């Protein structure tokens, strides 16, 4: 037997689940060849070691759990997979409901008159897209300060969300809260981190205003035009 065949024959023996000693030719070659004897011994040690490895056993409750799942009428047999799937379904339904409520609120007849105070209605009207593309619009920040409560809350919340999101953007040169240790030079006007962020967010605020305008023009204006 050649040494090159030795390992293949050893594997054939183990594949057939036969003891190593059962092949006389293999044992004879192992006695005569030092390298092959080492391989033989290593394989023997491996087989002996494997016998002592602990076998994973299921808990005593497994068969009871299977029985309970089989008895439960319509019970889902896959608790750990079913939960995320169910959660996704519930989450999807909630998102769909929220979207429906939003669309309903925007399309509702008399929404502008009923929900927006009279002094804010004018501001909102001024902010809507106009026929002349070059017309001046009030910045969203200004609108947030002067519009009605609901619109103000929406604008503030939007800005706060954007601020929170931008704080997580790595490399963005915005100071986190209290990064200066709360110390301000006494001869300078007090500028909090929110103001710094607000300055940093100015371009984004403008693009948000443009996006809101577009939404307004696409959804609300045609609806009002059709009503009139």
């Amino acid at each position, binding site marked *: 037997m050649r040494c090159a065949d030795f390992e293949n024959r050893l594997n054939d023996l183990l594949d057939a689940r036969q003891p190593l000693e059962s092949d006389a030719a293999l044992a004879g070659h192992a006695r005569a060849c030092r390298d092959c004897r080492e391989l033989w011994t290593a394989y023997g*040690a491996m087989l002996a070691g494997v016998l002592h490895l*602990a076998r994973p056993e299921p808990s005593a409750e*497994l068969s009871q*759990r299977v029985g309970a799942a089989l008895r439960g009428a319509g019970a889902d047999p896959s608790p750990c997979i079913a939960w995320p799937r169910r959660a996704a379904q519930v989450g999807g339904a909630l998102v769909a409901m929220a979207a429906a409520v939003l669309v309903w609120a925007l399309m509702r007849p008399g929404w502008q008159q009923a929900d927006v105070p009279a002094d804010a209605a004018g501001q909102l009207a001024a902010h809507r897209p106009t026929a002349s593309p070059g017309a001046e619009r009030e910045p969203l920040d200004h609108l947030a300060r002067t519009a009605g409560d609901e619109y103000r809350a929406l604008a503030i919340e939007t800005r706060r969300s954007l601020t929170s999101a931008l704080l997580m953007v790595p490399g963005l040169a915005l100071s986190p809260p209290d990064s200066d240790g709360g110390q301000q030079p006494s001869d300078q006007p007090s500028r909090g981190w929110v103001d710094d962020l607000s300055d940093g967010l100015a371009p984004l605020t403008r693009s948000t205003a443009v996006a809101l305008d577009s939404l307004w023009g696409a959804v609300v204006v045609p609806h009002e035009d059709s009503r009139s």
Partner: protein
Amino acid sequence: MPDDVRELVARCLAGDQAAVTALVDRFQGQVFGLCYRMLGHRQDAEDMAQETLVRAIRSLARWNPERGFLPWLLTIAGNRCRTLLASRARRPSLVAEVDHLADRGAAAEPAGQLAEEVALAVAELRLEYRQAFLMFQRDELSYAEIAAALDCPVGTVKTWVHRARRQIAERLRNRDVLREVPDAVRGL
């Protein structure tokens, strides 16, 4: 396939609850063993073993008796485990596997030390090699059963097992473990 399994299945299909329990008791260890090999996590393995057995028993009418019962069962288990692995996007933990490999109570004896060395060598194998090796050598599944469970050709499983043996043997040689191997193990 043994006739007693065929008979058990027939009794299950006839609504015999005792037969269902007997079938579960008979195969739960092998199903759990496979799930544990694939997932490396005891609780996940129990959940998948439960799901596999429930699905199999509910689908007994679709089982083809020409095909062995165990390979059919292991194929279901393998599919369930792959689905779970895909959903959680992480592979079995090596630590969990190593913790359960060695029989630590026997570590003081020479055979126990050898088992520990083998356990460490097994733990260092690539996941596919480790699964195939342990399923063949310890769980005593056939190459066809392993191939069905792991969803790969029989030739691939053989290659994995052979490579696993070679790597374990090399590690044992490099660790100088072979000098302390009892004569009974040498067999020459």
